[in-house]
Structures are given as structure tokens and as C-alpha cells.
């Protein structure tokens, strides 16, 4: 079969496609219904309940919701696009990221859960600031890290909404602009209604659907190519490096490529929406168990999309949009009702990620307002302010998605690395290296923000290789040069 010979399988919408539209519409209603349910039945009047679901979430919801939350636009779009264009070389990233996730669950999660409860911190930014709360450094940390988190989170939300637009445009043939607006507004509404409780429980439903989609899509795609052997033969015929772990590279080029994957994967240490789950879990003794579930799902979702991408290259040829390959297959290979359900799960996971990110940005800005600008403010006012911020972040995310300054992969990589360096690195240092000082945390956050942007725009070919050693040098150097922390609250 010639590459791309399957392209004609994507037919114009038929009356059957109405079923797909209906499933998706019903799903949005269910999502909003869950938000409304938690709004009415749980005590979301207190900010801590709104943000962390009362620090009483069990193992399975935490682990599965993390998968749904971090999966989303990355899994079925950006990572499929990488499989489509470069093949299995991306497995290096998968392996590196799994090791980073294991490290986080093992060495950062438990002490973070304990100290978070002691400090009563609600987000990672809050945690960094409260650790040095009685000093001017703590105040500066809150300002700089809030700015950094908001910048990266808006980028992240924008990338997710691009994925929503791509999905609905490709699978349902809805206009891109309308799809982005629908997704953005839907997630803003249900986030503002339900808070984290809603997002944890909707994430569980979506996590399961994402899992089903991740299992069915590659099986259907490889079967439609003619089976495993035919898939391997056709992929090799298109590009012999697609199935290679080295991507056909050697020497210095391979070393640079591996460094890029490893430094990208390091971003997993600082995803505030994922870190919030450590804070929300019932007990730090549960984190070890949650790690097993999360690692299993992560292994699956970091591997399978690459195969989906390669299958997409075989089915649709080089001319297709790489990041839309999974959505093309969804529409082509499944009956409309099943495609509708799976699309609902995927869109749901994307919206969940956006919702978790908006909650984090909202929490950080709200806390900044209360601690720095207006100390005496009621919980009710804060909650209303939090909801207003969610709306504003959603609007900015929609704006970015309409602007589309890069691919979904590009934008996620920027935000992922940026968050890892600015907040993940200082947090991990605080958890595992007692010598870490307040000025070192502040300097790392500032260098992380400037360095990520500088690395991307001044040395794009070396992104994100340069920013990590720079930030690490600043963290260690400043810690050694400044006095041992006196005002550490925990």
C-alpha cells in the first residue's frame, strides 16, 4: 500500500455523524451537571475546600485524575504529532519522564504533603512563599513566582484550547474558532461552579475514557494497515528511522537530541496542577500506592501515542496535519457512536487540564491579592475573585488559541519546561536539600522565568537544554553564598 493511500477514508460528514455531535453535546451537559452538583452539595464556600477538596481525596481519584489532567492535549495531539514526524525516538522522553515522575512521588510528594498541611499552603507558589513567610524574600517569591505561573499557565491553557479546536475541527468539522470558544467557555463555567472537587471527579470519568481511547486507537489503526508486520514494513518503507530509538542519529546530534528530551522531561517536577494533587491526597502514606497507578497510566500514555502517530503517517501520508492524525483516525476507523464517546473523553481530558491550570492560576492570584494587597477580605469575596480570575484566564487562553503562535507541542514544551524550572526546581530543592535558602529560591524562580523565555527565543535549537544548568547553578550557588535559612517555617 502506498503511504497516504488511506487518506480518502476521511469522508465528508454524513447523517451518521449526527450521532457523534449528539454524544459530544450530551457530554458537555454531563460535565456541567457534575460542576453544578458539587456547587450545590459540597462546602465550596471556603477557599481551601474549593482548591484542594478539603485535603481528603483517595488514591485512585488522585492517580487517575492526574493522568487525565496531564494527558489531554499532549497525549492525543502533541505526542501523536511527534510519532508522526520523528517516530519512536520520543521514547527517550517517555523513559526520562517516568523516572522523573517516580522521583517526584518518592522524594518530593510525601514531604510536600506534610509541610503543605503544616504551612496550610494551597499551591506550590503558596508553599514557596509561606516557607519564607516572615521575610521580605517570601513576599518577593510570591510576586515573582505568581507572575511566572500565570504566564506559563495561560500558555498551557491556550495550547489545550488549540487541541480542542483541532479535535472538533477534524472530527466534527466544526469551525475552529467556534470550537475554541465553546471549549473555553465550557471549562470556565464548570471550573467556576465546582472547583477542584468537580475537576477530580470529572477527571476520573475522563481518565477512564482516555485509557479506552489509548488502547483502542492503536489497535484499530494497526489493524487497518494490515496488522503488526504490515505496520512495521510500511513504516520502515516510508522512513527507516521512524521505528528506531536513535532516530537515525549518531554522535553529537544524538547526544544533543537526548539532552533535549531529558531536559524537557525534567519539567515534570514542577507542574503545579499535578503537585496540587499531592497536597489534596488524604495522607502522605497513600502517595506510594498512588505512584504505582500513576506510573502505569503514564507509561501507557507516553508510549501509545507515538505508535498512533506512526500509524497516522502510514494511513494518511506526509501531507496530513501531524497533530490531527489521531482525530482523523477516530472519525475514520470507529462507528460514529463510539467515536463520539471517545472524542468526548479526549475533549474532557483536555478541558480538565485547562480547568486544573485555571484553578492554580486563580489560587495564586487570589492569595497574592489577600497577602499583599488587601489583608482583610472575606472568604466569600476571595471565592468570587477566584471565579472572576478563572474567567479572565480562560479568555486569555482563548485569545492565545486563536492567535496560535506555534504547534501544540511547541507551546506545551515552553510551559512545561518553564513551570519545571521556575517552581519545580526550587520546590524539589526545599524538599530534599535542607541547605536551600530563600534568596536561592527567589533567584531560581526569576532566572527560571527569564531563562526559559531567553533560551526559547535566543537559542531555539538548544531549547530547553540551557535553562536547566543555568537555574541549577543559580540555586546551588546562591544557597551556598547566602546564610542558612533562619525563617524557614517547616
Amino acid at each position: 500500500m502506498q503511504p497516504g493511500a488511506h487518506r480518502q477514508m476521511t469522508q465528508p460528514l454524513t447523517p451518521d455523524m449526527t450521532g457523534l455531535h449528539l454524544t459530544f453535546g450530551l457530554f458537555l451537559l454531563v460535565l456541567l451537571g457534575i460542576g453544578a452538583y458539587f456547587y450545590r452539595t459540597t462546602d465550596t464556600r471556603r477557599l481551601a475546600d474549593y482548591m484542594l477538596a478539603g485535603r481528603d481525596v483517595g488514591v485512585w481519584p488522585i492517580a487517575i485524575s492526574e493522568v487525565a489532567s496531564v494527558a489531554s492535549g499532549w497525549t492525543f495531539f502533541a505526542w501523536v504529532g511527534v510519532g508522526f514526524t520523528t517516530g519512536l525516538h520520543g521514547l527517550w522522553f517517555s523513559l526520562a519522564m517516568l523516572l522523573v515522575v517516580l522521583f517526584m512521588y518518592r522524594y518530593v510528594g510525601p514531604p510536600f504533603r506534610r509541610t503543605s498541611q503544616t504551612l496550610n499552603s494551597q499551591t506550590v507558589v503558596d508553599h514557596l512563599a509561606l516557607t519564607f513567610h516572615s521575610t521580605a524574600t517570601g513576599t518577593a517569591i510570591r510576586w515573582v513566582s505568581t507572575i511566572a505561573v500565570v504566564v506559563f499557565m495561560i500558555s498551557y491553557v491556550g495550547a489545550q484550547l488549540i487541541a480542542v479546536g483541532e479535535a472538533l475541527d477534524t472530527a466534527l468539522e466544526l469551525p475552529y474558532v467556534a470550537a475554541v470558544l465553546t471549549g473555553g467557555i465550557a471549562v470556565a463555567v464548570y471550573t467556576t461552579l465546582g472547583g477542584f472537587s468537580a475537576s477530580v471527579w470529572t477527571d476520573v470519568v475522563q481518565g477512564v475514557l482516555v485509557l479506552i481511547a489509548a488502547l483502542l486507537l492503536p489497535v484499530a489503526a494497526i489493524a487497518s494497515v494490515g496488522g503488526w508486520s504490515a505496520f512495521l514494513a510500511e513504516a520502515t518503507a516510508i522512513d527507516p528511522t521512524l521505528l528506531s530509538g536513535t532516530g537515525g542519529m549518531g554522535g553529537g546530534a544524538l547526544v544533543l537530541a537526548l539532552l533535549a528530551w531529558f531536559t524537557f522531561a525534567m519539567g515534570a517536577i514542577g507542574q503545579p496542577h499535578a503537585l496540587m494533587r499531592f497536597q489534596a491526597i488524604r495522607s502522605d502514606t497513600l502517595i506510594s500506592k498512588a505512584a504505582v497507578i500513576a506510573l502505569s497510566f503514564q507509561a501507557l500514555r507516553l508510549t501509545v501515542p507515538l505508535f498512533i502517530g506512526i500509524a497516522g503517517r502510514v494511513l494518511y501520508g506526509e501531507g496530513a496535519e501531524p497533530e490531527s492524525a489521531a482525530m482523523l483516525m477516530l472519525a475514520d476507523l470507529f462507528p460514529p457512536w463510539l467515536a463520539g464517546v471517545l472524542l468526548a473523553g479526549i475533549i474532557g481530558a483536555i478541558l480538565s487540564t485547562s480547568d486544573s491550570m485555571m484553578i492554580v492560576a486563580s489560587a495564586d492570584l487570589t492569595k497574592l491579592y489577600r497577602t499583599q494587597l488587601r489583608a482583610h477580605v472575606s472568604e466569600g469575596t476571595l471565592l468570587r475573585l477566584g471565579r472572576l480570575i478563572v474567567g479572565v484566564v480562560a479568555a486569555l487562553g482563548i485569545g492565545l488559541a486563536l492567535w496560535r503562535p506555534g504547534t501544540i507541542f511547541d507551546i506545551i514544551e515552553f510551559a512545561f519546561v518553564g513551570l519545571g524550572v521556575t517552581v519545580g526546581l526550587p520546590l524539589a530543592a526545599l524538599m530534599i536539600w535542607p541547605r536551600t535558602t530563600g534568596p536561592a529560591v527567589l533567584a531560581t524562580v526569576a532566572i527560571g522565568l527569564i531563562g526559559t523565555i531567553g533560551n526559547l527565543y535566543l537559542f531555539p535549537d538548544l531549547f530547553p537544554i540551557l535553562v536547566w544548568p543555568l537555574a541549577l547553578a543559580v540555586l546551588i550557588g546562591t544557597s551556598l553564598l547566602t546564610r542558612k535559612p533562619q525563617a524557614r517555617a517547616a
Partner: protein
Amino acid sequence: MNSLPPETWLLLLGILVVPLLGYALYRLDAARRSSPDDPAPDA
């Protein structure tokens, strides 16, 4: 070609091993917590 290249299999094996490592560590933690001689700090 009817198989993946060896280095790709190795990578896939590595990806499979990490969750298993996580499981082994979880069992180790559980055993340590249930042992009266070596209770966890928050047990």
C-alpha cells in the same frame, strides 16, 4: 522488517520496568509500615 530494532525494544523494556519499580517500592513501604520494629514516622 518484521520487528522493532533492538534499541527500541530496550527503551520499551525500560518504560515497562519503571512502573514495576514503583510497585516494588510501594510493597517495600507497606512492609516497612506494618513492621513494629521500624514504624514509619507518621504511622
